[in-house]
């Protein structure tokens, strides 16, 4: 702890940033957008968690009567939808936004206003899909929305309308952000930072963006079909009209499986940042970590039908998807071993961030092993749609993604807010969370293999499931308590945590060379990168002796050549002569109008056709006008 508790050497940082609600509504600063993502996604994480606690309370004992069947079905649908689209994906986006420009030595993302637009579409879309639960109108067809159950014939209410439209809206956000970050990483890296010098988190984030832009179109198509079926009377999914009921399942899982890697890959990246820094050792096998990430991304597109072994694809199809699924275990295993090898021989500090990172390695391993178990179709036919699968993907997503994200939050909180989080509360958070998480999900392996199906709102006594379910419920309450430790720690440290300084952990990458929180322009002078660990080149040269270096010279790139340097203080952008993008409210207005446009279809479904037309077409025209005005406004002032 000694290193982290270093006394502050200078006063509270003061960034010259505008304050007030308006400044947040109009900001195009990637860091402030990242912070907005953080608060919003943490809110949805807590909301989805509370939904899970209600689910667990209902299942604590046989024949539970806390909620009705309908409410339960809405809750489990929204728990999945919320956690995937509104919590874990945007929690990763927190780091994409905040970190990628800092790690690659850029002053912002490629399209700052598009970035703001992505956030507002996400936030408003999240509200759109979340609010109906307060009116018993929340989606109730599962996060996977299988047709034909999700069609009008079997889900005539507004519930699945909100789901279809909400997911379409959220898809816009993800796609816009995906293209934005791909462009950013390709075009905006600091001089000298070639691809194999990119920080590992940025690499994993880069791969994730490709997964997003390749996977989301599949679900967009699936949702457009469903949208047309539900609102305009087409029959893409009407089996009585000859539709193949597997059309939806294939389209959905072509998206759905890469989505799993969209959820886990950023966490892999965060852990690969945290473990080396907190163990005082460079990442073991950086190139292999990059290649295995790329391999996982590619293979992830060839395994989707392993979600469908029970649909009767025939032995050939089952074999193909079984073998491709097993192959994914290889690059994933390589990552696990490389993390262990990074720890091996290190000087491991058990900071909260590192505990969560090691927690990911240990828990994701369990999820990975059970994943191999259901890559084997005959075995999977006993496991699929039981609690065994629930156990599996919670080890992957809670034990994996969320642990990685918590590691990232504890690690980067000082960079975001200039203050360290409380380690004592952090340890409480980790251990209660770790024990609670295992108590919740490990017994589900047993209840599943002992025959308990998923998505049931009630079960009968004497089925041999009572004990396991009770333990799971107790565990889920522990996780809720752990989250309270985190929330308290977050806000307490935000207000009065110890001042962090530039580089509280001894980091290797560029984000630690600038003040915490970073000034709006990030870098006073753009760094010139000479190796994979630019900051260690100054602070711990012995750590980077073995990696390739190029001499520092900034010829021809038009930038001042300062090599690598540490920056202090907060001179304003104006003083430094750095042109900054102007704030704009237009991204928010366009995002709002998109939500209104999609939402107008709801009026169609309740029989107000003229109202739907007026609102729909009106908002589309208004959106086009604002969009044109946005595009015609220059990003920066003349200079």
């Amino acid at each position, binding site marked *: 702890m000694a290193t982290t508790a270093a006394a502050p050497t200078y006063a509270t940082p003061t960034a010259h940033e505008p304050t007030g609600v308006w400044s947040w509504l109009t900001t195009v600063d990637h860091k402030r957008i990242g912070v907005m993502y953080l608060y919003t996604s943490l809110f949805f994480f807590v909301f989805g968690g509370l939904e899970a606690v209600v689910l667990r309370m209902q299942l604590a004992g046989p024949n539970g009567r806390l909620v009705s069947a309908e409410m339960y079905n809405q809750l489990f649908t929204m728990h999945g939808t919320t956690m995937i689209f509104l919590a874990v994906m945007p929690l990763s986006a927190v780091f994409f936004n905040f970190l990628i420009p800092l790690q690659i030595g850029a002053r912002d993302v490629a399209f700052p206003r598009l970035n703001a637009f992505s956030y507002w579409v996400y936030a408003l879309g999240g509200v759109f899909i979340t609010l109906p639960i307060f009116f018993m109108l929340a989606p109730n067809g599962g996060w996977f929305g*299988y047709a034909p159950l999700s069609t009008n014939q079997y889900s005539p209410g507004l519930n699945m309308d909100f789901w279809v439209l909400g997911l379409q809206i959220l898809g816009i956000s993800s796609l816009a952000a995906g293209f934005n970050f791909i462009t950013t990483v390709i075009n905006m890296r600091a001089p000298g930072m070639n691809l194999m010098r990119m920080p590992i988190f940025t690499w994993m984030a880069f791969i994730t963006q490709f997964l997003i832009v390749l996977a989301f179109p599949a679900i967009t198509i699936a949702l457009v079909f469903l949208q047309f079926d539900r609102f305009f009377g087409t029959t893409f999914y009407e089996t009585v009209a000859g539709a193949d009921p597997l059309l939806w399942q294939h389209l959905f899982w072509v998206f759905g499986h890469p989505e799993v890697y969209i959820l886990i890959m950023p966490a892999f990246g965060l852990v690969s940042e945290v473990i080396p820094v907190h163990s005082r050792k460079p990442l073991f096998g*950086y190139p292999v970590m990059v290649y295995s990430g790329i391999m996982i991304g590619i293979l992830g597109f060839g395994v989707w039908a392993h979600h469908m072994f029970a649909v009767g694809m025939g032995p050939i199809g089952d074999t193909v998807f079984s073998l491709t699924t097993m192959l994914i275990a290889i690059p994933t295993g390589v990552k696990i071993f490389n993390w262990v090898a990074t720890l091996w021989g290190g000087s491991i500090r058990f900071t909260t961030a590192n505990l969560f990172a090691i927690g990911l390695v240990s828990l994701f391993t369990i999820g990975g092993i059970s994943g191999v178990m259901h890559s084997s179709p005959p075995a999977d036919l006993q496991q699929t749609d039981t609690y065994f699968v629930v156990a599996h993907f919670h080890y992957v997503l809670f034990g994996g993604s969320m642990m990685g994200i918590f590691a990232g939050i504890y690690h980067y909180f000082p960079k975001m807010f200039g203050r360290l989080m409380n380690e004592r509360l952090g*340890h409480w958070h980790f251990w209660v969370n770790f024990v609670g998480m295992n108590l919740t999900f490990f017994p589900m392996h047993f209840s599943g293999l002992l025959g308990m199906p998923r998505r049931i709102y009630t079960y009968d006594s004497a089925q041999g499931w009572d004990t396991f379910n009770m333990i799971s419920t107790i565990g889920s309450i522990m996780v809720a308590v752990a989250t309270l430790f985190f929330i308290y720690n977050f806000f307490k440290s935000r207000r009065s945590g110890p001042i962090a300084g530039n580089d509280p952990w001894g980091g290797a990458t560029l984000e630690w060379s600038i003040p915490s929180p970073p000034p709006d322009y990030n870098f006073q002078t753009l760094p010139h990168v000479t190796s994979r660990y630019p900051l260690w080149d100054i602070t711990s040269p012995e750590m980077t002796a073995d990696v390739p270096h190029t001499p520092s010279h900034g010829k021809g790139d038009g930038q001042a050549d300062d090599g690598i340097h540490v920056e202090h203080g907060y001179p304003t952008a104006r003083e430094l002569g750095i042109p900054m993008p102007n704030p704009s409210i237009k991204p928010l207005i366009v995002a709002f109008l998109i939500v209104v446009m999609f939402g107008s279809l709801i009026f169609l479904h309740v029989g107000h056709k003229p109202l739907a037309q007026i609102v729909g077409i009106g908002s589309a025209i208004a959106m086009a006008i604002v969009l044109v005005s946005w595009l015609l406004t220059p990003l920066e002032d003349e200079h």
Partner: protein
Amino acid sequence: MTRTHRPRKLLAAGGLAALILALAACGQDYPNSTFNHHTEYNTLIDALWDKLLFWGTVVFVLVEALLVYVMFKYRRREGGPAPKHVHGNTTLEIMWTVAPALILVFIAVPTVQTIFRTQAKAAPNSLEVEVIGHQWWWEFRYPQYGIVTANELYLPIGHTANFTLRTRDVVHSFWIPQMGGKRDLISYNKPNYVWFTPDSALASSAWNGFCAEYCGASHANMKFRVFTVTPAEFQAWAQHQKTPAAFGAVAGATPHRAPGADTTPPPPPPPQLAAVQPAAGYISFPREKMDVAMVPATPTPEGLTFPDNLVGDAERGRQIYSSQSCIGCHAIAGNPVSFSEIGPNLTHVGSRTTIAAGLFPNDTRHLALWIKNSRAMKPGSIMPTMGKNQYDPITKTRLTIGLDDQQIADVVAYLQALK
């Protein structure tokens, strides 16, 4: 800053809890365990599972032990040596790429073998069973016997049953955990197949079956019972099921037959089964032999009551049934006005052990409450609320017309007479 060690105690407590859990788990019965193999199908799956569990445990122990070792060995100590700055090791990295690949070969080969063995064509002369999923109940047809029944599946031990799986509405999944893996019911026109042979050594016993694919409001309440019986008992049951209703059957009214099935002659029953003498006097699986886990204990809704002193009259019940909306959905072979296929076939409903797809025991009280207000009994139930002055939770209205309690008691008496 001093770090608290209390969280570590918490870990110890968690470990203890896990141990207690494991011990508690050993002392219980698991009526739906996938590990018991009573068919060749489940035996093959379980053999595969054993390999998966073995290799999974090897990897788990290896990785977690390595991790724990590293954490203790290389935790930061005051004045400890500075770490060596290793950036990678090609030999090691190749090793831990190849080792998992080798383990996967040990899993992949038996996997592929088992895929092809379990998805081969069923043996000729199997017992054909057609499974039709409905929101939220199961229709079972035995085309070789001309039997249509619901929510209770009879299988002769030692004989392969070949299931043709169809659905009338959304996707369902047919699953008997003790008998083998699940298979989805994806459409009516594109059936799926699964087959297995209940072990000939099995005693006559009852099992639980489930719908495993989320199918809407009452997905949790879409269960069924499976009875593995001796061939003689099966033959007796089948003979009985083929006869028209045991009460009030009109002479000459033919047993119900699925439309389309009339054009082709029914396939003959499997010869080995047909050769067996039916067990004398056997109608259905004896209720007293049912395990407690197969007897539903679902609570009935508060406020839904039925006077238990009413005595029903079966003949009056038959008349009420035949003149009310019941016949719009249900079929009873021998009752000439009752031939609809929307709801479960009720020809021998009195001999079934459960109602509402395994949700309630088939007794006077539950049957009466079910008819009175099935939608209060089973969320989303498509069968309308029938009782006078009852509140229908789906249309959100209170019925002003409908059956009074005496009429319901009469209908119950009629249904119970349909042994």
